């Protein structure tokens, strides 16, 4: 029981599924009493875990850096550690990221998501002779990476993108495309043409319909749809 006496029970309804024992998923209701200092949804989940240790979810940093506790919270993808308990409509309905294969409860299989990420070659490519010290950038060149490098690959955006739901195997999705643009716009990278050629594909890039769910939902306030628009414009420039 809470010592403060101000906190009330929070009712949370969680998607439960263990493929080894369950024929189909079910929703399980829990009442959890937050203790002093429990501000975020993840705090409540951690309390629940002490009561029911069969409940499975991922988490690590608990401060919006690792990207591992992405889930669908009351119909919207978000990070449990950045979602305040105050203001959440009850019962708080928690489901795994939509469109992703469920491994167990709130844990989804990210294999495909990361395959797309690796496919865009998420590293600097530069075959010119390396200078003695670092490759320098002007402040302006460095500024171009703002709004791109902060992505934590939580997959909130891709798992909220209808185009990604329909073609998760072929469409790179907003997260991968934002990352692709991060390297396209890097002044130190010399593979821009190859990167653009890879993306010039009816599936990889052009499944995006500018629905902008991605930008709307990103817990880091990044804008994948803007990055995608910039890739399209770069392709137009490239071809003309």
């Amino acid at each position: 029981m809470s010592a403060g006496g101000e906190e009330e029970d929070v009712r949370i309804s969680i998607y439960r599924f263990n493929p080894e024992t369950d024929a189909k998923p079910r929703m399980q209701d829990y009442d959890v009493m937050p203790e002093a200092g429990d501000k975020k949804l993840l705090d409540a989940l951690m309390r629940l875990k002490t009561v029911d240790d069969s409940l499975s979810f991922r988490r690590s940093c608990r401060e919006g850096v690792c990207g591992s506790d992405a889930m669908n919270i009351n119909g919207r993808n978000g990070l449990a550690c950045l979602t305040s308990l105050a203001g959440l409509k009850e019962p708080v309905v928690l489901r795994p990221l939509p469109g992703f294969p469920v491994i167990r409860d709130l844990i989804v299989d990210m294999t495909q998501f990361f395959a797309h990420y690796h496919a865009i070659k998420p590293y600097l490519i530069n075959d010119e002779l390396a200078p003695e010290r670092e490759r320098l950038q002007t402040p302006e060149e460095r500024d171009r990476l703002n709004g791109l490098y902060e992505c934590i690959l939580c997959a909130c955006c891709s798992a909220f993108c209808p185009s990604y739901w329909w073609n998760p195997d072929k469409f790179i999705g907003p997260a991968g495309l934002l990352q692709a643009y991060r390297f396209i716009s890097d002044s130190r990278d010399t593979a821009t043409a190859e990167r653009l050629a890879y993306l010039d594909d009816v599936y990889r890039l052009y499944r995006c319909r500018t629905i902008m769910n991605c930008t709307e939902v990103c817990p880091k306030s990044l804008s994948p749809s803007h990055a995608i628009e910039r890739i399209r414009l770069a392709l137009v420039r490239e071809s003309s």
Partner: protein
Amino acid sequence: MRLFLGQRAWMLQRATAVVLLIFLAAAAAMLLAGPPLSYERWHALATSPHGAVLIVVLFAALALHGWIGIRDIVLDYLHSPAVRLPLLGLIALVLIAIVIRVALTMAAHFMTAG
């Protein structure tokens, strides 16, 4: 084939959208200004060389724009090649047939009117 994939298709979709918008604006202007629409007015338009060419351009733009849009819907929702390929082929054929039909009709008038 590249014409209908990736970036080219995306550009074509936008370019044809602009063409269609211009036609829409022109049609609106025609309706607002000038005498009320009548068979005679349509006939005069379709039988003038400029009008005939414009009508063919309009249908060609419409078919191209429609093709990319419908193709996108098919690529999104229908994943079985056994359904997808015949369906895409059929849609392409119908669209091409429409444009050819319009072009022939327009041309036929000038042939006979000589």
